[in-house]
């Protein structure tokens, strides 16, 4: 794309010297520049506001311990105000404006809560510590150490392993399905199809991107799940496999479109030379064009990966949403995105569950940000090489 940008720029700069600019125009042009920074601002704000809400968990400043130290209700007047305020979890103004009765009621509630929790052995654990987030732990009542995501429970269990595994499983199925098919179709459309067919085939396949993800989710839930279960004979109707296939459909347009562009932008001389040397069109496509387009195809896969881990509605509707740690693709699975979508609405702003979900969101943001950077890097490298050679 940028050669034409440069051409435009060149023509501007050639005439720049002779032109007179009015002061108003100077202001407007600065305005244009400032508005164009909005994309940067937005990325920065997303990073800031999604990260900010999750940060306390990351820094260990948030606790999810169900039971903390209990101050007996009778001792309220003896307790220093600052300590009482912290104990009741109030802000300064809240504490000052609250009358004694209300404070007393809060203390009673705390004491009542503590009493019911007294029997729970794990009640004092801060389950937001790293070891509980990442490693299996043997909770009271369980036979062996397990990685469990059960945020709404007496003991809030926030192990993210099941969610990571679930996300990777669905993404893996999606890539295994969509990459080979999209790549094959891209080879056919760009190299083998008759040009007049190519004209309509490419936009037709790209039309898949026009189907909203909630519609794909609906299709997976009602049609694909019922169709695939008897075919494969697995146990749970909704699982990583069904969700992954639907996810695959969602990322096909991305992988296909970028691979096709990469294949088409290989200099035509390559193909002509191969054909002149007696190879069939297939041999030229497979042995000459494809190797030359490998970086572009890699970028397509990386972008497809980024799109798949971030897709929400399909997995929310078709994956079964069970937070299982297992290797089977036919087990139900719970992804990071579906977890955020299903659980965020019920959380109280600022509470540990809310912050944990934002932390997951930040994790997702970081993962897609990196995969995007990687894809851009690959593509710029490819373009530079192509232009150097062609």
């Amino acid at each position, binding site marked *: 794309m940028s050669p034409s940008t440069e051409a435009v720029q060149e023509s501007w700069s050639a005439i720049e010297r002779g032109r007179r600019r009015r002061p108003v125009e100077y202001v407007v042009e600065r305005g244009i520049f400032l508005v164009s920074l909005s994309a940067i601002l937005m990325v920065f704000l997303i990073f800031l506001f999604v990260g900010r809400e999750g940060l306390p968990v990351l820094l260990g400043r948030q606790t999810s311990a169900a039971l903390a130290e209990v101050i007996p209700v009778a001792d309220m007047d003896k307790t220093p105000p600052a300590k009482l305020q912290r104990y*009741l979890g109030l802000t300064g103004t809240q504490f000052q404006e609250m009358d004694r009765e209300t404070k007393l009621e809060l203390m009673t*509630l705390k004491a009542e809560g503590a009493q019911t929790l007294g029997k729970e052995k794990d009640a004092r654990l801060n389950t937001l510590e790293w070891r509980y987030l990442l490693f299996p732990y043997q909770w009271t009542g369980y036979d062996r150490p397990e990685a469990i995501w*059960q945020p709404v429970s007496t003991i809030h269990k926030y192990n993210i392993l099941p969610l990571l595994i679930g996300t990777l499983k669905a993404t893996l199925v999606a890539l295994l399905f969509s990459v080979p098919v999209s790549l094959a179709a891209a080879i056919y459309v760009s190299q083998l199809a008759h040009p007049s067919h190519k004209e309509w085939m490419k936009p037709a396949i790209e039309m898949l991107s026009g189907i909203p993800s909630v519609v794909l989710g609906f299709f997976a839930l009602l049609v694909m799940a019922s169709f695939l279960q008897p075919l494969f004979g697995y146990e749970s*109707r909704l699982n990583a496999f069904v969700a992954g296939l639907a996810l695959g459909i969602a990322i096909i347009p991305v992988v296909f479109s970028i691979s096709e562009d990469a294949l088409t932008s290989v200099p035509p001389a390559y193909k002509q030379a191969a054909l002149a040397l007696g190879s069939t069109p297939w041999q030229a496509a497979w042995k000459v064009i494809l190797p030359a387009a490998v970086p572009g195809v890699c970028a397509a896969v990386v972008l497809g990966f980024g799109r798949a881990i971030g897709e929400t509605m399909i997995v929310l509707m078709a994956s079964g949403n069970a937070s299982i740690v297992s290797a089977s693709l036919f087990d139900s699975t719970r992804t990071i995105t579906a977890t955020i979508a299903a659980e965020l*609405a019920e959380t109280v702003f600022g509470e540990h569950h809310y912050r944990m979900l934002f932390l997951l969101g930040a994790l997702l943001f970081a993962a897609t940000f990196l995969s995007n950077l990687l894809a851009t890097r690959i593509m710029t490298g490819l373009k530079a090489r192509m232009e150097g050679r062609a």
Partner: protein
Amino acid sequence: MKKLILSILAVMAAFGTFTAAQAGTITVKGSDTLVILAQKWAETYMGKNQNVKIQVTGGGSGVGFAALQNKATDLADASRKIKAEEVAECIKAFGKRPTEYKVALDGLAVYVSTDNPVKELTIEQLALIFTGKTKNWKAVGGPDAPITVYSRENSSGTYEFFKENVLGGKDFTSRAQTMPGTAAVLQAVSKDKNGIGYGGSAYGAGAKALAIKKDDSSPAILPNEETVVGGTYPIWRYLYVYVNPSLDKGDVAAYLTWIRSDAGQAIVKDIGYFPLPKAFRSNSGQ
């Protein structure tokens, strides 16, 4: 062109603040179990009182309480009692305990596929199945087939109620598939001959409700109006509406009174829940 856009925006903003200040809207948010009922109540009430507008949103009981604390709703529907920590949050937010109103009764049915020969289970067997200790239908008198457990999202009051009252507070098995709504549970169960799930008895098309025994020696009882209101069916609950007491006046108070009157309770039956016993009803609003 920019001027045009700016003026449109300005007009819209002015319009926004103006109408928001005008509207006499009651917002209702919370339990998915109650959302159909709440919506029916709203429709009927608005039909009689043209000046009142009622807006209903679901999402789960937890959503309702969170919204109540964040002051994002007037009424919070709930299919479970409010928890101590939620009361504490409410007190922090508006200085008082929220007022609790019982608005209906619900029997919680346990559903299996119509092909499943199992007809009755005890509470203890249910607990073993839903915590994942019992994994095969053979153990409870069914065919030799693995059990697929369907549960609800953890924002749902049904989830918490079932967990407290049937599982004795233990965690659901992590193999349980969580569904975003009771209907999804039912649909899954009706399509899966090894499936088991739970949900309000108002739903139920396509799947079979099990008869439940309190313990080995009790009789097995199916959920219906007689057994639930009479208290013989073991898994039942009240459905609640919570309100910030300082808002419980005017339109809101009138609406709450009407819900609990005979007229409001008649609708409960249409939806498939069970009306409150006479003692809990309000007298006015007929």
